[in-house]
């Protein structure tokens, strides 16, 4: 499926960007340093990439460190967001409603035109999450046209992870650190450049157009070893890829109260989670009352309205909101999508303001067997 690996010298990264643009993806988005974190923004050239930056992540903490002697531009794990906001917009109009001349209401779809965009530096965990989101949003018979339009505008350049953060546990969920599928191009970073492989016809076409030399077996071995080390270096894990029965057996476990006392029910974990897809829809009429926009925006199972039904809240208490999140993500997700909803990116751990650690909470829940009583 892959072309043989090619070697892209560090000095030629901009040529790769030009080749991608030539393929029709005029806009490039990649990792940059902004406000103390790695975020994805429009980039012009390789000079915009975060050279020498490392992320130090811990529960509730994220810091970037600059390593002046490093030439590497992907020596970090992740930032608060990656692909999710590009495919599942945080807020977008789905349709508009206007009063016509006869006083009737006319409905019009919101625009679904998106500039073809190449995303540079996608991680394995984000590709796994993208696959889950596609299952959710694009499932027949009612694929979401807004999601589909955004998704089909993207060309994805993965970079295998060589520098996991302390919060990462993708090796235990089986979603990384090597990007296995779902990309157009995949790269491994070495000091001298990148080992590049194609994942799709258009990716291979880009690669072929550059006339690069094959990567040497030495280069490929070194790249593989770095990814293997990245898997072995992960300190966190989930005890199983399927915790459905184990969690269902612990719905009344006292630990839910314990975590409920710490949880802020602020929704940060769900916002940074690359697989969380809950949203709310609302109408925003113009003051004149003549036009109205129907909006979709990110919601969270940690908000009150998420469980509002007929004048009461199903999940008023924080412990119930946390339980809903965790048991959906790791248990009922299996029934919906045939796998767990966690890809081990660790974002919910780092970006929780009070540092609640999903791996530690699961461990605490599992510690004392069946705790129904």
């Amino acid at each position, binding site marked *: 499926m892959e072309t043989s690996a090619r070697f892209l010298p560090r000095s030629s990264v901009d040529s790769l960007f030009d080749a991608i643009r030539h393929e029709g993806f005029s806009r490039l988005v990649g990792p940059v340093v902004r406000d*103390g974190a790695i975020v994805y923004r429009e980039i012009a050239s390789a000079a915009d990439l975060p050279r020498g930056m490392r992320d130090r992540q811990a529960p509730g903490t994220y810091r970037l460190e600059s390593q002046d002697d490093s030439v590497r531009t992907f020596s970090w794990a992740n930032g608060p967001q990656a692909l999710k906001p590009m495919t599942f917009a945080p807020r977008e109009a789905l349709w508009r409603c206007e009063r016509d001349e006869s006083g009737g209401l006319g409905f019009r779809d919101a625009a679904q035109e998106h500039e073809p965009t190449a995303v540079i530096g996608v991680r394995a965990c984000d590709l796994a999450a993208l696959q889950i989101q596609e299952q959710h949003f694009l499932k027949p018979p009612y694929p979401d046209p807004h999601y589909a339009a955004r998704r089909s505008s993207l060309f994805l350049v993965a970079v295998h992870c060589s520098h996991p953060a302390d919060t990462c546990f993708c090796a235990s969920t089986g979603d990384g650190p090597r990007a296995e599928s779902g990309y157009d191009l995949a790269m491994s970073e070495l000091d001298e450049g990148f080992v590049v492989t194609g994942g799709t016809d258009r990716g291979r076409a880009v690669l072929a157009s550059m006339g690069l030399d094959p990567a040497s077996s030495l280069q490929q071995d070194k790249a593989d070893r770095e990814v293997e080390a990245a898997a072995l270096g992960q300190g966190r894990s989930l005890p199983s890829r399927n915790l459905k029965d184990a969690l269902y057996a612990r719905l009344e476990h006292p630990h839910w109260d314990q975590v409920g006392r710490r949880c802020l029910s602020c929704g940060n974990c769900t916002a940074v989670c690359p697989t969380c897809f809950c949203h709310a829809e609302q109408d925003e009429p*113009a*003051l004149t009352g003549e036009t109205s926009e129907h909006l979709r925006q990110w919601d969270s199972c940690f908000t009150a309205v998420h469980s509002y039904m007929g004048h009461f809240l199903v999940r008023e208490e924080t412990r119930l909101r946390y339980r809903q999140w965790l048991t959906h993500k790791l248990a009922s997700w299996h029934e919906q999508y045939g796998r767990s909803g966690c890809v081990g990116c660790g974002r919910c751990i780092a970006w*929780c303001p009070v540092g609640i650690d999903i791996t530690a909470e699961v461990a605490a829940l599992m510690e004392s067997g069946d705790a129904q009583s």
Partner: protein
Amino acid sequence: MPVTSRSNQTTALERLNARENARPRVAVHKFSSCDGCQLAFINAGEALLELAQLVEIVHFAEAGPMDPEAAVDIAFVEGSISTPEEAQRIQTVRTNSRFLVSLGACATSGGLQALRNFNADGASGWTEAVYAQPEFINSLDTATPVAEHVKVDLELWGCPVNARQVFQAVRQLLFGVSPVVDKDKLCVECKRQQHVCVLVAKGIPCMGPVTHTGCGALCPAFGRDCYACFGPAENPNTASLSQRFDGLGLMPESVAQRFHFINSHAPAFRTEWLAWKERS
């Protein structure tokens, strides 16, 4: 609040309700406040002109129209109840209004001036310290939210309120439906806007996780911590956030002060302030 009158004389509100096809009448009342929330109306510019076409603005001293006793469909009330005269006047406003909206932090939680509620001697110590002739000042010992005096139909938080939120509420009322105000934590909106979390990435004590959304995450957009000018969100876990502030190295007095500011009188913040005040 339905107003009933058993006398033969009809009330102003009954006469208002008896009108046919008239534009809804709106009043903006001022109590103890800085006028900043009224400015949110005035600064709306074009939207305010549109509003003036849709409704009849009968009382809005800051913008011109003066008729404080007018019966209205919607009364916006800015400011807290801080004087004996205000305690009387808010009753009249309520009697003359079909739908009463508290506009901003002062009206909704007592505002900055509610800090005096925590003084043992009420306002008198400060009055004497500030004014050359304190005998002319006639204040209550407390500055309290409108809802502690009369029924409030809708609370709009903020210091100041967000004009977009105010006009959305007006629009809903003109459609004849109850306005819905989002009471989520600020973080939900901050993340939608993809601001980098200042608490996690910079270690600064942001109040976002316990604060009522509505401002559009203004402060975090500029790399600043939220200081809770929209008051407490629904289900705020102030105790856990305080613990985190403590872990960031804030002294107990500083933790207490995070809750003792614009919305100090709001119960969730008052309780947390007291808990940390006692430790300091």
